[in-house]
């Protein structure tokens, strides 16, 4: 009886895993097929011979270097900006009582609940007035503010024992030093988690980038890769498109694997109060 339940549970887990893994498998498999294989019916699970040339073609057609560089610039600067803006904000919300602090924190929470589709028209108009459409600053500066990052880091900072801050005050540490030398290192796992979310979100961002840009000059990879679908004279070359997607995803996968290990380490060291 017990064994039966365990077998059933294992099978359910395997089924779930397959559901999650299959799109990845299908993407990689398709990216290595010939065009004919990619559209044949019934579909072939695996390519007969591996067409690595698809990747070269995707790279060239997408102008990967140009858009990749844009993606890196936008993602890295957004992350840096968020650290600069959201960490002090979260520190203030977690540790200070100031005029209307409750009200402002409520605003952050409200913003957390608003979907982007509600706010994009006014934001577009605003940035258009600034002359920031089709510029790096238009893609970066508005996104250095993140309600999620502030909320998440506020919670992290609130968990830090007050005694530590008292001890730091007696150690003659300034407010800035307390934030950078005490709070940040202790909240490191949380900060890394937030930054990972930000990086993934910004790297994959399609919606905002599409709205805030008109030309190729500052556009990023997701839009360029989407363009792969339109190049074959009305014929969707799925194999090339999937190769482009694998290239788009690879950095995120690497980043995730790297950060995942780091988060675990950070939790072990940061685990005492």
């Amino acid at each position, binding site marked *: 009886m017990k064994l039966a339940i365990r077998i059933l549970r294992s099978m359910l887990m395997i089924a779930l895993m397959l559901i999650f893994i299959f799109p990845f498998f299908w993407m990689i498999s398709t990216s290595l097929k010939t065009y004919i294989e990619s559209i044949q019916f019934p579909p072939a699970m695996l390519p007969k011979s591996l067409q690595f040339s698809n990747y070269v073609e995707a790279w060239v057609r997408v102008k990967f270097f140009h858009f990749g560089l844009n993606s890196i610039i936008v993602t890295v600067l957004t992350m840096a900006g968020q650290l600069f803006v959201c960490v002090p904000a979260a520190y203030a919300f977690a540790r200070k*009582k100031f005029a209307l602090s409750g009200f402002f924190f409520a605003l952050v929470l409200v913003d957390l609940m608003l979907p982007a589709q509600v706010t994009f028209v006014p934001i577009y108009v605003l940035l258009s007035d600034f002359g920031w459409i089709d510029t790096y600053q238009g893609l970066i500066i508005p996104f250095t503010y993140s309600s999620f990052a502030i909320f998440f880091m506020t919670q992290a900072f609130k968990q830090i*024992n007050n*005694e*530590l801050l*008292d*001890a*730091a*005050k*007696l*150690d*003659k*540490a300034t407010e800035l*030093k307390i934030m950078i*030398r*005490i709070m940040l*290192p*202790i909240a*490191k796992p949380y900060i890394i988690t937030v930054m990972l979310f930000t990086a993934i979100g910004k790297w994959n961002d399609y919606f905002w980038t599409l709205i805030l840009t008109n030309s190729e000059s500052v556009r990023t990879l997701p839009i360029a890769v989407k363009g792969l679908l339109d190049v074959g004279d009305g014929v969707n070359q799925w194999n090339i498109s999937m190769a482009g997607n694998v290239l788009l995803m690879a950095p995120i996968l690497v980043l995730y694997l790297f950060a995942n290990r780091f988060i675990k380490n950070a939790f*072990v*060291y*940061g*685990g*005492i*109060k």
Partner: protein
Amino acid sequence: MSAIQFENVRKTYPNGKTVIDQLNLEIRDSSFTVLVGPSGCGKTTALRMIAGLEDVSEGMIRIGAANVTKLEPGDRDVAMVFQNYAIYPHMTVKRNIEFGLKNQGLSKADIVRRLDHVISQVGLEQYANAMPSMLSGGQRQRIALARAISKQTSVFLMDEPLSNLDAKLRNQMRSELIQLHKNLQSTFVFVTHDQVEAMTMGTDIVIFNEGRVMQTGTPKEVYNNPDNVFVATFIGDPGMNIVSLRMTCQLGFRPQRARFTMPERFQGVVLPGEIMTCETLGMDSLYHVRTTMGTILVKSEEEREFGDNVSVYVAEQDMFFFDMHEQRIRDAGRILQLTQSILLKEGVYVAREHSGEAAAR
């Protein structure tokens, strides 16, 4: 010179609650002063005000000759040890101690010298480069101590630093702290809710209740000569027995001073009663005895069983009287009058040795 003075200090929290009102207190230079009292009595708040971690709503605090009321914690020449150690978890033992010294702007050579000195003083030489998470509770508390010692301040504040340690380690740390105080000769202010800690460690004791100082004095003074019912019942293990006398005043006596047999040259009261419970403590036992004046505690080496009928003898010189405001009555004439009046109480006898007329049963 580093005596600490509270002058008319009031502390009101933003929610409107006043936890300390009209506090006037002097903590002697180089004393080991223990602030003791039940939870929420204001002792920790008082300590944190010395450190500068709590604002003073009204009044003035001096350390030595300086008015420190408005000074930042780092500028007050105080070091503090916290209940939960407050060790920076992401720094090694060495960096934990260095952090404050670097902020003070000491020279590298100075820092190294102080580090070596304090780390060996608390016996953590092997762990100088260890992360705190690798160390035990006792060792972490030593880091906190080392960090405080390294600052070489004239005032040393401790907020229940032993309460997270197990009983054996606590006893050991107690004597180490007493030793440390002797070596450093700085002013120690120690907060605890444990009167045993207060009695064993303090040169001076300040007993707090509900934001007010109930009594100050040496451990002997507050034990032998309590000013009021609160101090009488709070200090001692267990505290004093208090029984009401005809509504207007109260009689107190120590459980240790009550006897089951009549001592020689006895002069005092005798209460007939029955043993309700008996706790064996090793050398002696703690008895709950039901008498006509209520249930009282007796701590005695004499063996008695549950349910035994006993007489409890309390000598005249061991009796303390308190008025209806729970303040000690010290007037000799009034005490004599009260002693006489106990006679009138039903079921209580006043015994005079050799007089023959008294005796319990």
